[in-house]
């Protein structure tokens, strides 16, 4: 592959430049700063991409503003002429590849053309600069060797790192005798799971024997149960036999006893019948005795007495009952009259004032004549006349009192309307005030200067005016003016006094005056009105007082007259009383009463007569009643109260009649009873006979022996019952009937059977338990899915293990592939390279050194022609560089077929001496047959070594569109 032409659109300092390169050697010559490195970078960057921004490599974006990028025209053995254009785009630039047939491609095609080499790979083989060679100095031997190796075999370093990393990763996955790597852990788990599975599988194996045993156990259980049943039966039988023994004994004893009592007979229901007969007998006897008693009693009653006589006497008394009633009524009416009369009399006496019995006597003795009555009547009329006179005087007096009172009231009312003390005081004060006020007014108007003098003058003037006013008032009878005058005079007087006292107080006075004026200003009329009212009031009051005095005089004269009349009246009265007392009358009486008084006295005297008459009548009636009572007492034979007399008599009569009737009934009853007694006696006899027959049946003589026979019979009966019961009991144990033997034998047999039974029972229990556990086990085994889970887990782990194993395998394969590649390199490629390098190295060192070789420690050694070996670090700088160049060039030669790229060198030979330099140039000339060589140099001399080379002066680049040949 060759670079034919560079077309720079814009790159660093260069823009719009086209540079033609040649087959063979092209030399770019230029001074420092001429732009050689820019072109060098242009080639690499167009082919392999602009470096990313912020990379340490420069991007060479043009400052001039022309388009960034350019084209590299290649001619390739495989692809023909290809135009690779890279311009600004994404960070690596947008690349376009144009083939000669017109097809266009991109990065993919470019990579193909570049044989998948990237910049690093390219630079490590095909491009080298002084810088890289200089860098060698600083490296130690180890690094140098590796750099030499790696620079020749691209990316080997990385591969070796990768291999190490893969080994590490592998170790994390698996170690042959490790514990912690994932696969080892899994392996352990898998083994454990296998063990678990084995155990679980073994458990499953238990199932079949368990099932078989279960069947066996079931069979045994059935057999044992049957046996147990049999034994139980035998045991029961023996137990029954044991129970039978005492029962049998009892039965035999009882049977013997029954045999003994066997002849005893007794009538059925004998006791009941006997008792019935007994009861009937008793009943009959009772009836007889009762009837007999009753008979005797009745007989006694009838024999006692006849009551006929008494009955007749009572009946006679009854006839007289109406007489009795009349007497009673008479008593009542007489008593009522007496009581009424007494009351009347008492009443009259009361009214007459005769409260004491002596007075009654007096009244009864009063002379009730008409003449007496008339005398008294005259006296009373006199008294009456005088009293009426007194009354009229009394009325007069009353009226004059009322008049007087009214006047006093008027006076009071006036007093109420009287001016208030304040008003009176004001009215009193006003005249003086008015004068002061006038003075004040004058004072104020006259001012201050003439004040003291003026005021004095004014006072005096006031007095004069006052005198004048008073005089005028007196003359004209104008009292108000007089008062004013007086007031003014007073004011004036006062003023003189004041002035004399405080002549120096004029200023204060002035103030006072002003205050006064202020206080009374506009109120003068009001004060005048008050004065007038006060005056009016005083006059009215005087008038009323005069009237009141007159009325008082009138009243006093009336009072004198009344006193005389009252004395008259008293004497007339006295006369009347005396007349009355002389007539025996103590009461005070007036004219009207006199007639009435006499009527009453007469009435009292009348009632007294009637009372005496009635008392006589009552006494007679009482005597008759006493007769009646004594008669009744003799008839009834006892004392009789008067009130109940006839009630008792009637009662007695009724009783007597009833007694008669009862006697008759008793006789009838006696007949009846006699008959009953006869009947019952017959019955009794028959019962006694029946009883005797009953006794005979039981073979008894009397009742006691009859009962004894009954007891015996009863005993027999109960024994018979017992015997039956025992027989029944024995029947229930019938199964044991055949078993003979005594208690001890039976006991022995039973204990044998029991122990057998217990044994079998134990067996059954054991078997049942076993069966339960077997059932449980088989059931558990049937439902147990632990094994399933384990096996699933096992499968999972296995899968996981396989996955990781795959991871491991892939790493192992990769690592192994890397190792083999490395080995290949070392064993096959490296020797070829070294062989080629040795030739070059020998040539470059003009035969000073024989060869380069790799030692077992991986370091390069140079073999001097005299057989001495040197480590690279021990070589001189130039020789080092020559070794390096030799290796590089040999690599490029070796790779010619795979990667026929141009070799680009940036001033690599500066340290070479002339001899070696010519060797070098010669070598390059040789190489140029197979490789395109591009050399950048600042040494003018270098170009002279290659006459066939095209030399381009970089300083002139851009100045001519075609580039400039030196």
């Amino acid at each position, binding site marked *: 592959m060759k670079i034919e032409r560079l077309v720079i659109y814009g790159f660093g300092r260069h823009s719009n430049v086209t540079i033609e390169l040649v087959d063979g050697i092209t030399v770019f010559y230029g001074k420092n700063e001429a732009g050689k490195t820019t072109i060098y970078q242009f080639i690499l960057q167009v082919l392999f991409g602009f470096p990313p921004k912020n990379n340490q490599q420069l991007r060479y974006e043009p400052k001039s503003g022309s388009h960034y990028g350019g084209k590299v025209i290649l001619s390739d053995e495989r692809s023909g002429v290809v135009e690779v254009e890279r311009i600004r785009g994404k960070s690596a630039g947008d690349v376009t590849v144009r083939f000669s047939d017109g097809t266009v491609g991109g990065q993919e095609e470019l990579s193909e053309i570049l044989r998948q080499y990237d910049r690093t790979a390219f630079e490590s083989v095909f491009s080298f600069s002084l810088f890289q060679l200089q860098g060698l100095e600083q490296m130690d031997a180890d690094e140098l060797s590796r750099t030499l190796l790696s620079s020749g075999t691209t990316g080997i370093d990385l591969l070796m790192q990768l291999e190490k990393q893969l080994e590490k990763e592998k170790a994390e996955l698996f170690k042959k005798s490790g514990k912690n790597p994932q696969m080892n852990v899994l392996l352990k788990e898998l083994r454990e799971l296998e063990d678990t599975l084995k155990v679980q599988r073994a458990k499953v194996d238990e199932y079949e024997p368990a099932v078989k045993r279960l069947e066996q156990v079931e069979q045994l259980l059935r057999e044992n149960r049957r046996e147990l049943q049999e034994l139980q039966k035998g045991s029961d039988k023996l137990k029954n036999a044991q129970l039978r023994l005492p029962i049998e004994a009892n039965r035999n004893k009882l049977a013997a006893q029954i045999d003994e009592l066997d002849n005893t007979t007794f009538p059925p229901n004998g006791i009941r019948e006997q008792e019935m007969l007994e009861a009937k007998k008793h009943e009959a006897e009772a009836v007889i005795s009762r009837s007999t008693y009753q008979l005797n009693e009745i007989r006694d009653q009838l024999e006692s007495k006849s009551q006929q006589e008494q009955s007749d006497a009572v009946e006679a008394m009854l006839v007289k009952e109406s007489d009795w009633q009349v007497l009673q009524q008479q008593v009542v009416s007489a008593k009522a009259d007496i009581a009424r009369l007494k009351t009347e009399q008492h009443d009259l006496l009361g009214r007459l004032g005769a409260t004491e019995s002596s007075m009654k006597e007096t009244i009864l003795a009063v002379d009730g004549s008409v003449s007496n009555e008339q005398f008294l009547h005259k006296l009373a009329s006199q008294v009456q006349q005088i009293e009426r006179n007194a009354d009229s005087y009394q009325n007069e007096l009353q009226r004059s009192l009322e008049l007087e009172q009214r006047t006093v009231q008027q006076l009071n009312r006036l007093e109420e309307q009287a001016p208030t003390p304040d008003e009176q005081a004001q009215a009193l004060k006003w005249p003086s005030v008015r004068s002061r006020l006038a003075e004040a007014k004058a004072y104020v108007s006259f001012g201050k200067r003439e004040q003291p003098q003026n005021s004095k003058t004014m006072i005096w003037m006031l007095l004069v005016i006052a005198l004048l006013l008073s005089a005028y008032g007196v003359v004209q009878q104008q009292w108000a003016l007089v008062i004013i005058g007086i007031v003014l005079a007073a004011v004036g007087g006062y003023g003189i006094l004041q002035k004399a006292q405080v002549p120096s107080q004029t200023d204060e006075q002035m103030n006072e005056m002003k205050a006064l004026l202020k206080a009374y200003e506009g109120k003068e009329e009001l004060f005048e009105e008050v004065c007038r009212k006060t005056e009016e009031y005083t006059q009215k009051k005087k008038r009323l007082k005069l009237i009141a005095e007159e009325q008082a005089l009138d009243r006093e004269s009336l009072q004198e007259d009344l006193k005389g009349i009252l004395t008259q009246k008293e004497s007339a009265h006295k006369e009347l009383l005396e007349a009355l007392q002389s007539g025996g009358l103590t009461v005070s009486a007036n004219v009207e009463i006199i007639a009435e008084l006499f009527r009453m006295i007469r009435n009292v005297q009348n009632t007294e007569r009637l009372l005496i008459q009635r008392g006589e009548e009552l006494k007679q009636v009482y005597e008759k009643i006493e007769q009646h009572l004594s008669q009744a007492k003799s008839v009834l034979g006892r004392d009789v109260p008067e009130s109940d007399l006839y009630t008792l008599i009637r009662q007695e009569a009724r009783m007597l009649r009833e007694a008669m009737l009862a006697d008759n009934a008793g006789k009838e009853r006696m007949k009846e009873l006699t008959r009953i007694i006869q009947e019952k006696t017959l019955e009794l006899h028959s019962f006694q006979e029946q009883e005797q027959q009953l006794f005979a049946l039981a073979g008894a003589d009397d009742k006691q022996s009859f009962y004894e026979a009954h007891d015996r019979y009863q005993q027999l009966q109960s024994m018979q019952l017992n015997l039956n019961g025992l027989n029944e009991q024995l029947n229930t144990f019938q199964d044991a009937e055949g078993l003979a033997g005594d208690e001890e034998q039976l006991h022995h047999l039973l204990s044998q059977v029991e122990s057998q039974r217990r044994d079998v029972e134990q067996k059954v229990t054991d078997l049942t338990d076993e069966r339960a556990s077997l059932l449980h086990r088989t059931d558990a085994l049937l439902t147990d899915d632990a094994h399933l889970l384990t096996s*699933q887990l096992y499968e999972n782990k296995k899968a996981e293990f396989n996955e990781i194993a795959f991871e491991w395998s892939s790493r192992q394969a990769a690592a192994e592939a890397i190792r083999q590649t490395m080995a290949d390199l070392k064993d096959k490629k490296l020797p070829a390279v070294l062989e080629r390098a040795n030739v070059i190295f020998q040539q470059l060192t003009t035969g000073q050194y024989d060869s380069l070789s790799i030692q077992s420690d991986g370091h390069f050694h140079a073999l001097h022609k005299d057989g001495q070996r040197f480590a690279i670090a021990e070589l001189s700088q130039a020789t080092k560089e020559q070794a390096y160049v030799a290796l590089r060039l040999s690599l490029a030669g070796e790779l010619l077929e795979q990667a026929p790229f141009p070799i680009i060198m940036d001033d690599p030979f500066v340290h070479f001496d002339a001899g070696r330099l010519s060797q070098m140039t010669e070598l390059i000339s040789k190489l140029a047959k197979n490789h395109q060589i591009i050399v950048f140099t600042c040494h003018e001399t270098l170009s002279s070594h290659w006459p066939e080379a095209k030399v381009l002066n970089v300083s002139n680049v851009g100045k001519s569109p075609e580039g400039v040949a030196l």
Partner: protein
Amino acid sequence: MIRFIHTADLHLDSPFKGMTEMPADRLAELRESTFAAYENVIQYAETSLPDFILIAGDIYDGEDRSLRAQMRFVKGLERLKQAGIPVFISHGNHDHLAGKWTRFELPDNVTVFGPFVETVELKIREHLVRIHGFSYPERHVRKPMIEHYPIIQREQGTLDIGMLHGSLMGEETHAVYAPFTKEALVGKGYHYWALGHIHKRQTILSEPPVVYPGNIQGRHRNEQGVKGIYEVELEETHAAFKFVPTSVLVFDEIEVDCSKLTHANEWLAVCLELVSDRIEQIGACILSVHNVNISEEAVQMFASSTSREWLEILRESAEKDVWFAELTFENTSESVQLPDSPLVRSVKEQMVHWELNEWKHVLKDVYQHARSAPYLSPINQGMKEDLIEEAGKLISNELSK
């Protein structure tokens, strides 16, 4: 016409393989699924009442079959007995006759073939049905047992059915048992071949029908799709069969188009939508999620976490009736864009040139290790390829950093 059910490879209660990271409760659920599928078979039979049922081997998974599994199997048979359905069993390599495991007594509606090929006849309406078969006397029967099956001449009114647990000769993907050829089968003259052993449902021949019904419940992510049984209507000249799904849990795969995805939640939403669609179609399932058409943004998105983490995110957000078994990514075009350097290429080429022996040598630390080897599946071609790819990725990714 007779009607019967043909099933095989029940693998009751077998552990599910290759399920890592599944929580214990879900595992138990998973484990129960074979029983549930079996229950479905029984229920279907109880309602459809076929003339008989053929079970062509591998009822249980292996020697460490559980008692529970056997008990449940027997209970199912008893139900079939209640329904009056005869059952014919020819045991296979997983449940051969030599096993020393406890055997449960089977109800009398069940006929088990002995270790030699034998013929059982039964009368179904107007047909005489002859069933030919054998049970594996031991774990490994490598001989072509087909030789021992009688050749019959077809007779009017007679139907011949062969039961055979084995694999087609030359079919290397499964362990070879009782191998046979199609010709040999046809040569016997039977009306129907009821096969077992291969878990993938397939009809090898249609005339006469030679059928693998597949297993009744998928148990591995390689056993994808709805599983079930065949209900066969057989006449002398014609056979019709209907597939009856029985699986309660389906292993399946979904493809997620990542060409327009840039955010994790978008991806998650797309996944979950696909999942719920899938659940609607096939019910509860265990899914492998395959991401395809991965855009550059998506690559960056996926690069933000490890694929294990993505898988966990998916598992956490998914419904109860789905489990995500694995998460894979289509080879991204990105890696094509960044081709390997010459050195990397030469490294990768090293692996490609390794022969099986060399692989064994390279991996001997683990694969030949006395402790670990027994747990590992042997190295085969597929694994070689997978390893080359995975190792290549390791190298490329590391070096392109």
